[in-house]
């Protein structure tokens, strides 16, 4: 037996507790151990070490997993999960049915008192929505008119306005590029990589 063989079996003796030796390695080791006291001692020590380390594992605090679940922050992907949309879609379908019923009842005879109250509430929401939309439209129209008048009155103001718009565009593009770079970097770090990568850092 060469020194190289001995070193090889010594290594196998230390790796045996992991239970990963092949049948050929196991039988070779058994054969070698029969005539090598040093490797026998190493094997016993490795097995003892494995037991010792396994026995020194600590217990996880009671309720740890519940605590983790309670503290889960909302994740970006949750908004894209089908379950998140279920409630919204159900509400939409309900509103659709209500609208259909309202149209049908409205065309025929007066609605019964309970349905009447329901439709009144619907009408209230509709009016509020229309009023809000009208207000926003009017405000923007007002801003547009004032801006147009100001620019027409002063040609210099028109130039300043143009520069301002161009600067805002540049800022916006830079922001987009930075966001894309950050997303790419985050993805590269978090995604499992070469071989079997994975990191959320």
């Amino acid at each position: 037996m060469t020194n190289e063989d001995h070193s090889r079996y010594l290594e196998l003796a230390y790796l045996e507790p992991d239970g990963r030796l092949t049948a050929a390695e196991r039988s070779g080791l058994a054969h070698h151990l029969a005539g090598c006291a040093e490797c026998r001692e190493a094997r016993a020590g490795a097995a003892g070490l494995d037991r010792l380390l396994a026995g020194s594992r600590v217990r996880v605090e009671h309720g740890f997993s519940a605590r983790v679940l309670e503290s889960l922050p909302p994740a970006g992907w949750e908004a894209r999960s089908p379950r998140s949309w279920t409630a919204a879609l159900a509400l939409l379908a309900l509103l659709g049915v209500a609208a259909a019923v309202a149209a049908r009842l409205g065309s025929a005879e007066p609605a019964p008192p309970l349905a009447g109250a329901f439709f009144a509430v619907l009408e209230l929401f509709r009016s509020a929505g229309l009023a809000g939309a009208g207000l926003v439209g009017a405000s923007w129209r007002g801003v547009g008119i004032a801006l147009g008048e100001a620019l027409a009155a002063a040609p210099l103001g028109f130039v300043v306005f143009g520069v301002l718009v161009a600067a805002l565009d540049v800022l916006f593009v830079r922001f987009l590029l930075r966001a894309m770079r950050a997303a790419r970097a985050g993805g590269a770090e978090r995604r499992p990589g070469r071989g079997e990568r994975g990191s959320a850092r």
Partner: protein
Amino acid sequence: MTKAPPQPSDPELVEAVLGGDQERYGELVERYQGRLVNYLFRLLRDLEGAHDLAQEVFLKIYQALDRYDPRYRFSTWLFRVAQNAAIDQIRKRRLKLVSMDRPGKGWEDLGTWEFPHPDRGPYADLRNRERGVAIQRAIEELPWEYRELIVLRHFGELSYEEIATLKEMPLGTVKNKLFRGRQILKKSLHDFLTD
């Protein structure tokens, strides 16, 4: 005798969570919490800190769950995140030298063992404590290249392949480093191996 239903795989659990069944994340946490806490505890020497950091790691993983690629092992991803978090933590602690001796459950205060010593009594308790201290000291005295692999294997309970992927090193190197690390540990813990 009824056969136990097969456990869902990690990718199946991830898919369920991403499908909106958030509670299934608890199964993933329970599957890995012991290994993760033990791994972090051996690196940080602080049981409370290990729990806090493990929680943080699980939260990070949850937030990035949609980026998990099921072609790869969940465990490798989890331990990579944990390893980075632990290194950050250790760095921060080194910076805060003054607060290094912060109170908390360290290895000297450990009273809990997964497999408690069968003999109870003052001598057994003392021996138990001595053993815990000796193990932690022996691990800390290992050169870093062996130490991290020993901790990943014996406390993170990762396979050779998982360690090889995580550390981006050939399988043969992983085995060789574990062998060398164990040789050193065996010498340091010789007195406790016959218990």
